[in-house]
């Protein structure tokens, strides 16, 4: 079977002046074609973001950071690609939605320009770029899209900025969308809207998604497979239902216990530490 993405023995290390800090210790996972969604969970600093950034060489260059192992995207090793080839994968193959929409958009360009840049790069055949951008803005549910075309990022709310980020990712028409905690910076109601939007778009466009989060709550009903990372290693991997029903690793159990259950009164919200200490 041919996977869309196959990562084996991925190791990532950062080097500062006199010490080396390996933050990812050889992980393996894969994403199938045909709209599969993989969720990566883990606490803050466990290496989720860096693992995904390494998929298109977005990490700092070698003296500061080294990546080893093998990342096969559509059968080709990303880590061995030169600058020109990797640009072909970025956007077109793998597109990203980042954690912090407010700082991920360039403050001095209009959002229309920033999305149009992606369109021009990956769909040179489209003549009416502006029309396409407005279409995309409408697709992600921004009202008055034509007017918003020439708005600057700081003139929009956090939720709208995240929609713009999604529109920009979709403009590339990627095979695989990496959504790195797309809802962390947003409040709860917007979170639900964004997750619904992603779900809708996945069905409409048929792309695969890697969803990074530390919230088991949104994984349920969204992802097919789940990977749990802890301190740079994968500690649990499998279909969402089986992991949820029968977690093996104590960290996973702790995470699951952290899901606030509706209608169930708890004295206080459990933290990961207290849950893990209790077991």
């Amino acid at each position, binding site marked *: 079977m041919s996977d869309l993405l196959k990562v084996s023995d991925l190791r990532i290390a950062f080097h500062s002046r006199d010490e080396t800090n390996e933050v990812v210790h050889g992980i393996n996972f894969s994403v199938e074609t045909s709209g599969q969604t993989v969720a990566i969970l883990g606490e803050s600093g466990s290496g989720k973001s860096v693992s995904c950034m390494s998929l298109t060489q977005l990490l*700092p260059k070698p003296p500061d950071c080294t990546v080893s192992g093998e990342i096969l995207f559509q059968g080709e090793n990303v880590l061995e690609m030169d600058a020109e080839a990797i640009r072909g994968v970025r956007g077109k193959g793998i597109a990203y939605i980042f954690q912090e929409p407010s700082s*991920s958009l360039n403050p*001095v360009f209009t959002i229309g320009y920033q999305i149009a*840049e992606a369109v021009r*790069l990956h769909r040179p055949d489209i003549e009416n770029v502006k029309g396409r951008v407005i279409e995309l803005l409408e697709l992600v549910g921004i009202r008055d899209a034509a007017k918003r075309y020439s708005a*600057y990022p700081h003139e929009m709310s956090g939720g709208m900025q995240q929609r713009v980020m999604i529109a*920009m990712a979709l403009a590339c028409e990627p095979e695989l969308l990496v959504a790195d905690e797309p809802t962390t910076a947003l409040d709860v109601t917007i979170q639900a809207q964004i997750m619904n939007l992603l779900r809708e778009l996945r069905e409409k466009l048929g792309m695969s998604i890697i969803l990074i989060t530390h919230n088991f709550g949104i994984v349920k009903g969204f992802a097919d497979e789940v990977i749990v990372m802890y301190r740079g290693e994968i500690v649990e991997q499998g279909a969402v239902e089986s992991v949820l029903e029968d977690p093996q690793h104590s960290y996973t159990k702790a995470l699951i216990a952290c899901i606030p259950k509706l209608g169930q009164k708890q004295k206080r919200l459990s933290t990961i530490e207290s849950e893990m200490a209790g077991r």
Partner: protein
Amino acid sequence: MFAFIIRRLLSLVPLLLGVSLLVSLLMYLSPGDFLTQARAAKDIDPAVIEQQERQLGLVNADGEATAWFVRYGHWMANISLVKYGPWVGQPEEGLSFGWPYFGESWTYKVEVFTLLKQRVPATFILSLTSIFFAWCIAIPLGVLAAIYKDSIFDRISALLAYAALSIPEFFLAILAVYFAAITGIFPEGGRSSVESEFLGLGARILDYGYHLILPTVVLGIGSVAGMMRIMRANFIDYMQAEFATTARAKGVAERVIMFKHVLRNAINPLITAFGYSFASLLSGALLVENVMNYPGLGQLIYEALIREDQYVVMAGVLIGVVMLVFGNLFSDLLLGWMDPRIRLEGGAKNGASGQKANLVWLVLIGIIALQILLEVFAPSLLGMIGLILKYIGLLLVGLLAVACVLLVGYIVFTLFRRLIGGVLRRPMGAAALAVLTLLYCGALFAPAISPYPITEQNLVKPYHPPTGFAWKDGALHAKLYQKEAVGSPTYIHSEDATAPIVWFSKSESYKLFGLIPMERKLFQLETEDPAARVYLLGSDATGRDIFSRLLHGSQVSLSIGFIGISITLILGFIVGSLAGYYGGTVDFVAMRLVELLMSIPGLYLLLALRSAFISPDFSPTQVYMVIIIILSVIGWAGTARIIRGMTLSIRNRPFVVAAESMGQCVPMILIKHILPNIASYLLVAATLAIPGYILAEAALSFLGLGISEPSASWGLMLKQSQGNMIVFFMNFWWMLTPGLAIFVTVIAYNVLGDVLRDIVDPKMQTR
């Protein structure tokens, strides 16, 4: 935006009022009266004087000189567009319209306005070209240094930036003239050639451009370094910004990311700095124009100040301020256009703070008005108050200076003990420290090391080149030189003419550290010939030993930075920490004052203050003291601003709140809790600020307004080479060694400051 421009221009009015009032007060305070001088001058037509007296109200009905504020009032009436007859010397009463009249220049014997019409465009164009030059060099270099961070190119450009930051502008100007004189590629000065009048328009413009090149480069290089470093730091920051990653993740080419996404963001701080760079350029222009004999506004104001040409100074300073405000306005507009996040407010939001700013001016004008009232109704009282204030002030300043140096010395010592390991571990830091130690030792032991007294002339050996040495009969001998022929500037060494050097031999008595009486000097020449000398670094125009003068001069140049920064730090700490601690009105008033001080081009303020407070009969020590005080009074503003920011960030930390809740008094909290937390930053800021003092003293002495002959200071020694073409044409390079000494000192302080900053906080940006 229109409202914004209007408001800005309106705020110019109180500023101009305040500045002109201040200038005329300072001119009045400075010794000597321009009217008396003008009357005494042989070449001024009495009719002109009489006309001026009438039109500008210089004398009253009885023919006595009027008070300064009366003259100021008349001057104001003359420059206003609507004129009231009696105030402008017209017999008939009633209002009339007329162009502003700025008075007459005594020295140039033309109307001030005519003079300005020639000079202002020259300086304006020079400032523009040098900013343009600086940008064209700084931006590409900064970007390249950022992209190829840590490469050879980055290192070299950082080194060059250090050098450019550390070289005094006037020294660079001297070097440029030197270069022009030797190679003959560029004109040695002036704005146009002699034959310019007879050229066609095109050729004349080319001629102007040709004369503009060297001044532009000299003036621009100082700003290149600063801008380049800002650009590089910004660019590196933005290269790692998340939006750059976003663009990369989209598949945008690296080149496009750098030159579009990153550059557009990184360039904004430079635009903000544009307004300020204009201010510093105006200061720099004064020196550069003087050395290169470029007839611009800076040279004009300087000469007018020296010669008490009152109305030229007033008008020149006003034009300078107007140019500055327009520079700031332009950079704000540009920034508003470049950065969509900035909205130029013209409406009510900033109105309140604008009014408060005007309040500061009103208070200032009020104080001056009070002074005027006292002067009119109780002149003797004013004199007494002035005298009392002067002595109290002197006493306080003396005490303050001692306290400051002790306190700062103690802090530096304790901090340094903690940081010294880190400094010594870095080669750059160790080297800078070694250089500074050497320099300060030289200054301390100057009387023992220098072979000759600084005032000892040797008129038969002017411009003697540095002495060579020979090894003879088991002892070190110095070569002796004779003039090639009588009257010839070149010296030749005849074989065998040497004299032995004796170590620790007796000479005239002196006091080491001003206390210990000594008789022996490090080395002397043993010879019968009274004119034979050992000149390690050659001799100057009167045959004085440059090496000895350099050592003694270092006492002034090196101590002035240290004492000055001590006073500055204490003043800055008091004002800054109180402003940060209390916030609100205290903060507001303090910060407006700071902005005011920072917006006046430093050198002009320095000159004005110095001509107001130093009278010709001061002893060198007094001059030295006053210069230090003036420098620190001008310099505390920047420090206060930094300290305020730091206090603000520490103010709400738990330990401060805890101390407050225990009822500790404010001075205690500031000293015990806030000072220790910002001490190391202060050390860094101080180290980086000391060069400013050294350069300012050098500039002042160079202009002949600081330490004066026969004392020695580095700036003063360089003055001998200014405009002295024989030095350049005969290649008397040793006359320029004081410039090298300044350069080395400043660069050592800059390197040390950067190393300290690296240790204290790698991410901190002081500049």
